[in-house]
């Protein structure tokens, strides 16, 4: 009955069949868990939020899919299988959140806040001690400017309440619940996240920062973000921050859907620095229509395991997609990230630049897909992956997949793995820099193509964070 709400077949299925590319599991796997999440919980979430009937049905349908779908059999299976779904609280209302105290925040994280010079109010917010980030005043004036332009920038729950028709038309059309186990989970229990709608022709001058939106669900476990850029509009959205974000929730599974209508331009910047107990399993996908442009700028520093492959479906002629990503994996971390570019129209172009650093036994993986559909003539894709290993214990792998069903295309793929060169270190040290300073300088240089795309304050903070990581003083 509500199938069309879960699946927009026209877009949803494009490039979804990753089974041929090692992106999906065999269907004969038997899933046994599910006791942690029940139909009652999902119904309760929906009723507490006073949601319309269609959303409840959407959630319940997603729940069925989640329960039936096996765990992915690719990526870091060992870590994935250790997720205990029964031990997860799927929904806690803000008011019911147990009061956490500053004293409970690990010492290492506090020290890092110190060294980064994070303001007091912001520290407590990042540490999950307060739900309020005191930028309310700043945001207030920004909100007035946005309203004057007709831009909608709300949390997803409010978005659904206040703009139900827009949400209903687009929600789940880019990432159907059935896309993967974690998108199904998110679809069943989502809460928070952002809803952005930019009217035709409107260019939003300042980046919209998730920070401005002040509630605890901002950094929730199952965020749901939907950004719709009407024809000819532009918006830059920024989420996350460079400072470590402390969370006691071990599973974070967001879904982010972007829709760039003809001639629109969306840039989505993420800096993820979750504390090192977090599994960060995110599904991010964009649809770019004719002459539209979508950019994912994606930085992954924290978490225990991140699996994230921002995708762009280029469905209109001359649409352009870019993914620019960095990953940093230290001790006991695995950053499994990448990009998916799906060329479904003629003269579409895409570019991926992925940079990763592994240190102290950390592991980074690049997992990428380029798919070109028949008749996507003149499609061009350029992919560049550079991995830097800081020691012998660390690891980096590349898993590129190409599925090209059209002859008239230009696909370039280049991957390098290197070590911080002894000669580079010696050169900088012979100029007076200590080994840590020299290493940090080389790494900042390696990440520079990414950093230069960030707003200045983020770039400065990221560079400082890398310096701290290099001197081994980050907790």
């Amino acid at each position, binding site marked *: 009955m509500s199938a069309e709400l879960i699946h927009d077949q026209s877009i949803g299925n494009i490039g979804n069949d990753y089974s041929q590319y090692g992106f999906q599991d065999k269907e004969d796997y038997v899933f046994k868990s599910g006791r942690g999440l029940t139909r009652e919980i999902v119904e309760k979430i929906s009723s507490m939020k006073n949601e319309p009937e269609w959303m409840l049905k959407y959630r319940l349908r997603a729940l069925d899919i989640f329960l039936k779908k096996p765990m992915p059999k690719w990526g870091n299976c060992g870590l994935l299988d250790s997720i205990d779904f029964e031990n997860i609280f799927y929904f806690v209302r803000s008011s019911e959140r147990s009061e956490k105290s500053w004293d409970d925040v690990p010492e290492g994280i506090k020290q890092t806040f110190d060294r980064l010079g994070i303001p007091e109010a912001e520290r407590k917010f990042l540490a999950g001690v307060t739900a309020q980030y005191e930028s309310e005043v700043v945001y207030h004036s920004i909100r007035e400017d946005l309203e004057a332009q007709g831009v909608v920038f709300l949390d997803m729950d409010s978005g659904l309440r206040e703009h139900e028709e827009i949400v209903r038309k687009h929600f789940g059309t880019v990432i159907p619940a059935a896309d993967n186990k974690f998108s199904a989970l998110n679809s069943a229990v989502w809460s928070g996240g952002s809803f952005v709608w930019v009217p035709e022709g409107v260019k939003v001058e300042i980046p919209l920062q998730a920070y401005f939106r002040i509630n605890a669900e901002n950094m929730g476990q199952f965020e749901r973000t939907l950004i719709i850029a009407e024809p000819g509009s532009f918006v830059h959205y920024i989420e996350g921050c460079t400072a470590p974000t402390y969370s006691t929730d071990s599973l974070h599974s967001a879904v982010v859907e972007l829709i760039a209508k003809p001639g629109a331009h969306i840039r989505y910047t993420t800096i993820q620095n979750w504390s090192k107990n977090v599994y960060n399993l995110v599904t991010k996908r964009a649809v770019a229509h004719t002459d539209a442009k979508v950019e994912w700028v994606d930085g992954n520093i924290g978490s225990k395991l991140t699996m994230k492959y921002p995708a762009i479906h280029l469905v209109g002629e001359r649409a352009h997609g870019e993914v620019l990503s960095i990953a940093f994996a230290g001790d006991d971390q695995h950053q499994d990230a990448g990009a998916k570019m799906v060329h479904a129209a003629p003269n579409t172009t895409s570019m991926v630049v992925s940079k990763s650093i592994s240190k102290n036994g950390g592991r980074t993986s690049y997992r990428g897909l380029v798919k070109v559909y028949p008749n996507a003539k003149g499609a061009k894709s350029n992919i560049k992956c550079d991995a830097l290993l800081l020691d012998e214990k660390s690891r980096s792998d590349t898993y590129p997949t190409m599925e090209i069903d059209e002859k008239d295309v230009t696909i370039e793929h280049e991957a390098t793995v290197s070590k911080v*060169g*002894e*000669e*580079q270190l*010696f*050169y*900088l*040290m*012979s*100029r*007076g*820099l*200590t*080994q840590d*300073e*020299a290493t940090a*300088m*080389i790494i*900042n*240089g*390696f*990440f*520079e*193509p990414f950093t230069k795309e960030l707003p200045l304050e983020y770039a400065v903070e990221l560079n400082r964070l890398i310096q701290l990581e290099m001197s081994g003083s980050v907790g």
Partner: protein
Amino acid sequence: MTAKKPLLSIQDLHAKVEDKEILKGVNLEIFPGEVHAIMGRNGSGKSTLSYTLMGHPRYTVTSGKILFKGEDIVEMSPDQRARIGLALAFQYPVAIPGVSVSNFLRASVNAVRGKEIPVKEFRAELKEKMKSLGVPNEFLSRYINDGFSGGEKKRLEILQLALLKPALAVLDETDSGLDIDALKTVSEGINTLANPETAVLLITHYQRILNYVEPQFVHVFQDGRIIKSGGADLSKELEARGYDWVSQELTPSGVS
């Protein structure tokens, strides 16, 4: 006034790379402000000497001493050596993508001088040095040695020495791979560098650069040690008679 003390005193220095002994008993004294040239064939161990002086991790001192300002520096890391006034201009400077020349120069100057120099002051000093070395402004926003021509790399090396004002500047084959115009500019830079506060040790294969930079002392390097020392005339004699002449002269008759 006490008698002048040597700035650098290398005493019976032996060094190896992996398990191969390259330096086999080097002795050399340099006093403040002096200009020395070490000449020798490729493979004679000249570059090993420069790397060993600067403390490259792959070069291990097996015996002997390197006294700099009276202190044995053998156990010091390269950055410690830089901070007490030693500098090396590399034969093959490496590229470091993503790090701009201006950021690097400022970090380096701050590290060596041991204090933060105000940006404005630093800029002014930098502009002046760049002008005298004919280094174009666009160098500053480029990445360190990334896509630089041979001549550009060497000019950047000299610029760094000029900013760091070391007590001893070691130049490893700075003349190699330069055309005549670049050689002249670089030589002028070296001449400006050489002053009572900065001694220079030029390591070279060719006599060519010595037409522009006149050393007070010339040493012939062979098989991991200095086999002959003399004044500026020695380099001219080498040019005229070749390295074989020195080795023959030093080989006692009856020994091959």
